[in-house]
C-alpha cells in the first residue's frame, strides 16, 4: 500500500517539499496530493517584483503543471484546505473535497500583516504578497498619482520600489526611528535613507498611522501626531502573519503570536502532521526567508523517508538589492557579543557604509553590515560562518584590497570544503569543486543542472563562478571564452581565422575550425563574421540567420513581420510619406513612428513581404536593416538649416553618415546621432557613436547606448572636421567589428577593454598598433560593396520563393489572428 501524503499549500516551500521527495526516488512508495489556495502552481515569490519589470507569471513559475502530472502529483488549485480531522486523518477542502492522509504537511506560508488601522478596507489599500495583489496594484495605479507604503523593512522597501516604478510619487512610512530596524544599525540606516531619497522617494520615520481617510477610496493618511499626508494609493507591508488558522481549528499547538509549533523534525504537536516554511514556529521563531524554508522541507522529507536530519537554528544573514541599493547584514550585526570591537567605514559622498564586529584579539568575525556596496558579502559571510581566522588587517576583507596594496591572500581557497555556498539548495564548496573535478562541469549552466547551485535566490552566483574558474585553473585547464560547444575559439579568434583562411561558408568554418552541426549560438555569430568580412548577400547564408535576418524583417507576436524602410537622418519628403501611407493602407499594416525617427509598419504576412518591398523600392526606399545586427538609424536634430541655435548642418551630416555605414553587419546593432549644438536634441551621447557640432567643428563621442543598461558615450575627439570624424569612425567601427564578443554593444566592449577609452584613443587616433591603414581599407571595401538586400530579393524569383508559410499550399498561416484597437489592427495576445 502506498502511503498518502497531503500537502496543504503550494507556495515556494510546499513545492520544494514535493521536489525533494521526488529526488529521493521513492515516489513509488507514496501518493502525493497537493492543495493550493492560489489559482496557479507555486511561483518564485522572492522575485515577485520582477513581475512589474516584465517577467510574466509563467516566467516566475517554479515548475509548470506538466511537471506535477509527470510526477503523478495530484495538484488541486484554487481550493484551500479548510478543515483537518487529526483523529480520522482526513482533510476537507473549501469546495468540499475530502482526502485521507497518512502524513499531512502544512506549508500554508504567511499572509501580509495588516495592523488594525481604521479605514484599511478602503479602495486603493493593498498588500504585497501574491501575483493577484500585484495585478490589483497595477490596475489601480493607472488612476493614482501619489502612493505610500506602510513599513520600512525589507518587504516595505520592495513594495516602495514597485510603487515608484509605476510612476507614482512615493512615500515610505516607518514606525521605528530608522529603516530596516531589524537588519541595520543607525548609521547604516541613515546611508540607506539618503540613497533612497536621492531617488525621489520620501521617507517618514517614527510615524504611526492613526487612520486611513477618504469616502470609499483612500484620499489621505492621518498620523498619530496629527499630520496628514494626501495619497491615493497605499500598500501595507508591515510584516507577516503565519497562516495557522486551519491548524488552530484542528487543535494543533500554536505560538502566542501565531505560527504552528514544530520540533527538530518539523512535526507539529500531532506527529503525523508536519509544518514547514513561513507557517512553522521553530524555537519561538518564524523564519521569513526562503532558504530556511527549503531546509525545513528537506528535514521533513528526511523524516518521512526515514533518514536522520534535524533542523538547526538558521542563520538569518541576507543580501538584497533594495531600490538599487545593496544592503546586507550577517551574523551579529549590532555587535552585541561581549567584548567585541567594531570597525566602521563610511563614505557619505558615495553613500557607502560598512561595519564589521570582531573579537578583541582581532581574529574572529562576529557579524556586520554593508550598505551601498556589498561586493564582499559572500566572502565575509563565509569567513563568519566557518570561523576562519581573520587576516592581520581585517578591514581589507570588508573594503577589498585597495589600489596598490597587496591582496590580503584571503580568498576562496581559505574556505573549508563543507562551507555552504548556496544556502537555498544546500550546496557546499566541496560539492562545487568536486563537480568540476569529477564530473567535468566547467560553467555555471552545467553546475545549475548538476546540483542546482545558484538556482534559488541567485546571491551565490558570483562565488560559484569563481569557484568553477579557480578549480579549473588549479587543474591546469585554460579558461577562455569560447563560442559554444562547436567552436573552441572566441569571436575575435574566429574573426581572424576566417579572414586568414579565407573561409566563406559556415560548413567550411565547421570543417576547418569546429565540430558537430552548429547551433543557434555559433550560426548567427559566424554569419555575422562572414558578413563583416566579405559583405556578401545575407540570404546566401540564410540557414545561419536568426529568423529576422532570414526573412529580412522582424518577427512579431503571432508570426507576422514588420517593415522598416530606411529614412536617413529622419528626413523624408511628403511624396515618400504618402507612399508609406498608401502601402500600409493597401496591405492593412499597423503604422507607428519609431523611437529611431522612422516609420515602422507591422503585421505583414511572410508572403506579402516581397510585394510590399517591391512597391517601396520602386518609390526609392531601401532596407532599414531594423532586423539585423547592423547599422540602424542615425538620428538627427534639425540643425543650422532651421534652428536658431544650430552651428552646422546636422541633418546633412547625419544622412551622409547613415548612407556610409548602412548595411554594415557588426557583433551587435549600431546606432548613431548628430546634434547641431550642445543642447543635444538628437541624443548623440546615448549612441554607439554620436556627433555634436561645436563652434570649430564636431565633437565625436563613442560607446554609449540606451537599452537595459544605459551608458553615456565618452568624448573621443574634439573640434575635428568632417573628414577626420569619418576617418575615426571608420577605424573605430572596424576595430569593434574585429574584436568584440558576439552580441556585445560598443559600451560593453569598451567596459571590458583593458586600458579603456585611453587605450582606444591610442589605437584609433595615435595608431599605436599600426593597423589604421588596414582598418580604413577594410571599411572602404564594406562601403563600396554595399547593396540593398531587399532590392536583390525583389528582383530574384528564386529568393522570392522563400517567403511562404506553407511549402505545399499558397495559403497564409490560418492561425494568425488580429484584433482592432484605436482604429488599427493588432495581433491577439499570446495564449
Amino acid at each position: 500500500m502506498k502511503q498518502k501524503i497531503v500537502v496543504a499549500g503550494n507556495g515556494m516551500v510546499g513545492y520544494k517539499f514535493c521536489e525533494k521527495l521526488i529526488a529521493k526516488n521513492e515516489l513509488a512508495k507514496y501518493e502525493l496530493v497537493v492543495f493550493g489556495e492560489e489559482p496557479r502552481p507555486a511561483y518564485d515569490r522572492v522575485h515577485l517584483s520582477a513581475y512589474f519589470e516584465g517577467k510574466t507569471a509563467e516566467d516566475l513559475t517554479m515548475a509548470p503543471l506538466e511537471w506535477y502530472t509527470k510526477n503523478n502529483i495530484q495538484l488541486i488549485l484554487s481550493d484551500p484546505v479548510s478543515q483537518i480531522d487529526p483523529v480520522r486523518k482526513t482533510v476537507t477542502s473549501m469546495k468540499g473535497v475530502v482526502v485521507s492522509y497518512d502524513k499531512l504537511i502544512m506549508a500554508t506560508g504567511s499572509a501580509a500583516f495588516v495592523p488594525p488601522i481604521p479605514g484599511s478596507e478602503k479602495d486603493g489599500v493593498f498588500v504585497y504578497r501574491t501575483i493577484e495583489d500585484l495585478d490589483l496594484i497595477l490596475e489601480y495605479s493607472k488612476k493614482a498619482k501619489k502612493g505610500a507604503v506602510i513599513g520600512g523593512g525589507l518587504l516595505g522597501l520592495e513594495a516602495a520600489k514597485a510603487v515608484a516604478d509605476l510612476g507614482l510619487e512615493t512615500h515610505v512610512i516607518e514606525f521605528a526611528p530608522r529603516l530596516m530596524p531589524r537588519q541595520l544599525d543607525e548609521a547604516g540606516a541613515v546611508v540607506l535613507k539618503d540613497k533612497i531619497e536621492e531617488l525621489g522617494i520620501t521617507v517618514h520615520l517614527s510615524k504611526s498611522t492613526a487612520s486611513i481617510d477618504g469616502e470609499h477610496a483612500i484620499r489621505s493618511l492621518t498620523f498619530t501626531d496629527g499630520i496628514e499626508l494626501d495619497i491615493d494609493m497605499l500598500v501595507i507591508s508591515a510584516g507577516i502573519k503565519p497562516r495557522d488558522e486551519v491548524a488552530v481549528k484542528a487543535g494543533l499547538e500554536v505560538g502566542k503570536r501565531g505560527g504552528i509549533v514544530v520540533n527538530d523534525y518539523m512535526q507539529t504537536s500531532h506527529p503525523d502532521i508536519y509544518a514547514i516554511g513561513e507557517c512553522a514556529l521553530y524555537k519561538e521563531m518564524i523564519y521569513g526567508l526562503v532558504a530556511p524554508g527549503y531546509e525545513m522541507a528537506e528535514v521533513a522529507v528526511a523524516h518521512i523517508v526515514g533518514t536522520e536530519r534535524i533542523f538547526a537554528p538558521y542563520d538569518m544573514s541576507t543580501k538584497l538589492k533594495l531600490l538599487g541599493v545593496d544592503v546586507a547584514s550577517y551574523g551579529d550585526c549590532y555587535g552585541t557579543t561581549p567584548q567585541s570591537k567594531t570597525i566602521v567605514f563610511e563614505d557619505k559622498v558615495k553613500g557607502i557604509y560598512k561595519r564589521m564586529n570582531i573579537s578583541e584579539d582581532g581574529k574572529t568575525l562576529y557579524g556586520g553590515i554593508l550598505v551601498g556596496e556589498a561586493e564582499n558579502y559572500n566572502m565575509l559571510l563565509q569567513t563568519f560562518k566557518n570561523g576562519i581566522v581573520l587576516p592581520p588587517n581585517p578591514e581589507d576583507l570588508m573594503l577589498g584590497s585597495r589600489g596598490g596594496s597587496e591582496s590580503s591572500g584571503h580568498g576562496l581557497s581559505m574556505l573549508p570544503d563543507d562551507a555552504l555556498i548556496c544556502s537555498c539548495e544546500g550546496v557546499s564548496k566541496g560539492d562545487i569543486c568536486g563537480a568540476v573535478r569529477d564530473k567535468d562541469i566547467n560553467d555555471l549552466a552545467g553546475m545549475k543542472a548538476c546540483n542546482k547551485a545558484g538556482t534559488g535566490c541567485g546571491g551565490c552566483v558570483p562565488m560559484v563562478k569563481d569557484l568553477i574558474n579557480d578549480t579549473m585553473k588549479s587543474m591546469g585547464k585554460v579558461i577562455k571564452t569560447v563560442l559554444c560547444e562547436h567552436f573552441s575559439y572566441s569571436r575575435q579568434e574566429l574573426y581572424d581565422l576566417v579572414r586568414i583562411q579565407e573561409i566563406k561558408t559556415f560548413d567550411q568554418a565547421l570543417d576547418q575550425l569546429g565540430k558537430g552541426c552548429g547551433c543557434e549560438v555559433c550560426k548567427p555569430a559566424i554569419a555575422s563574421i562572414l558578413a563583416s568580412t566579405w559583405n556578401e548577400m545575407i540570404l546566401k547564408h540564410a540557414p545561419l540567420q536568426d529568423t529576422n535576418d532570414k526573412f529580412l524583417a522582424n518577427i512579431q507576436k503571432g508570426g507576422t513581420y514588420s517593415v522598416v524602410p530606411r529614412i536617413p537622418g529622419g528626413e523624408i519628403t511628403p511624396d515618400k510619406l504618402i507612399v508609406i501611407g498608401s502601402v500600409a493602407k493597401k496591405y492593412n499594416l499597423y503604422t507607428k513612428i519609431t523611437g529611431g525617427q522612422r516609420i515602422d509598419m507591422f503585421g505583414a504576412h511572410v508572403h506579402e513581404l516581397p510585394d510590399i518591398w517591391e512597391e517601396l523600392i520602386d518609390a526609392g526606399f531601401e532596407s532599414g536593416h531594423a532586423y539585423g545586427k547592423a547599422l540602424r538609424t542615425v538620428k538627427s536634430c534639425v540643425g543650422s538649416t532651421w534652428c536658431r541655435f544650430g552651428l552646422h548642418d546636422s541633418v546633412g551630416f547625419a544622412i551622409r553618415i547613415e548612407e556610409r555605414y548602412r548595411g554594415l553587419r557588426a557583433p551587435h546593432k549600431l546606432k548613431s546621432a548628430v546634434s547641431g549644438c550642445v543642447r543635444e536634441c538628437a541624443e548623440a551621447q546615448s549612441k554607439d557613436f554620436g556627433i555634436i557640432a561645436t563652434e570649430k567643428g564636431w565633437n565625436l563621442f563613442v560607446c554609449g547606448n540606451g537599452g537595459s543598461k544605459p551608458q553615456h558615450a565618452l568624448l573621443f575627439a574634439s573640434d575635428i572636421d568632417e573628414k577626420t570624424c569619418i576617418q575615426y569612425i571608420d577605424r573605430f567601427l572596424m576595430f569593434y567589428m574585429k574584436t568584440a564578443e558576439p552580441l556585445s554593444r560598443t559600451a560593453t566592449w569598451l567596459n571590458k577593454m583593458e586600458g579603456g577609452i585611453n587605450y582606444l584613443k591610442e589605437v584609433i587616433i595615435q595608431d599605436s598598433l599600426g593597423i589604421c591603414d588596414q582598418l580604413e581599407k577594410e571599411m572602404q571595401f564594406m562601403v563600396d560593396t554595399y547593396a540593398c538586400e531587399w532590392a536583390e530579393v525583389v528582383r530574384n524569383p528564386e529568393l522570392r520563393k522563400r517567403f511562404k508559410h506553407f511549402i505545399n499550399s499558397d495559403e497564409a498561416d490560418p492561425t494568425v489572428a488580429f484584433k482592432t484597437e484605436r482604429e488599427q489592427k493588432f495581433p491577439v495576445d499570446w495564449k
Partner: protein
Amino acid sequence: MEEKKLTDEIGQLQKISWIKVCTTDSIPENEGGCVKIKDKQIAIFNFTKTGEWFATDNQCPHKMQMILSRGMLGDQAGEPKVACPYHKKTFSLHTGECLSGEEYSIQTYPVKVEKNEVFIGMTV
C-alpha cells in the same frame, strides 16, 4: 535499401500511413519548411549536415506560435535540434523533448525519403 525496408516495417507495425508531403528540393539545405496536412501544420527539416530528415509539430509549445519550421537547426552533444526563433527554446528532433530545461515537448513524426519525395508517417 535495407534501411528503407526497416522503416516500412516499423510503419506497418504501428499502423502508420505515409503521406507524401513535398519533394526534397522544396526545402533548402539545413533549413525547414511547413506543410499543411488537413488542419495540421507540420514542420519538416532537411538536416543536410547529416543527411537526415525530421518532422515535428510546427507549433512551439512556449507561446503557442506556429513557427518551428522557421527555426534554426543545430545539435547539442550530437543530438539534432531546432531552436524556436521567438525565445530560442530548443527541441530535440529525435524525441521532441525540450533541451533548454522546460517541461514541455513537441510531437515528432517519422520521415522517409523515396527518390526525391518526402513522406511523413502519421497514425490514422
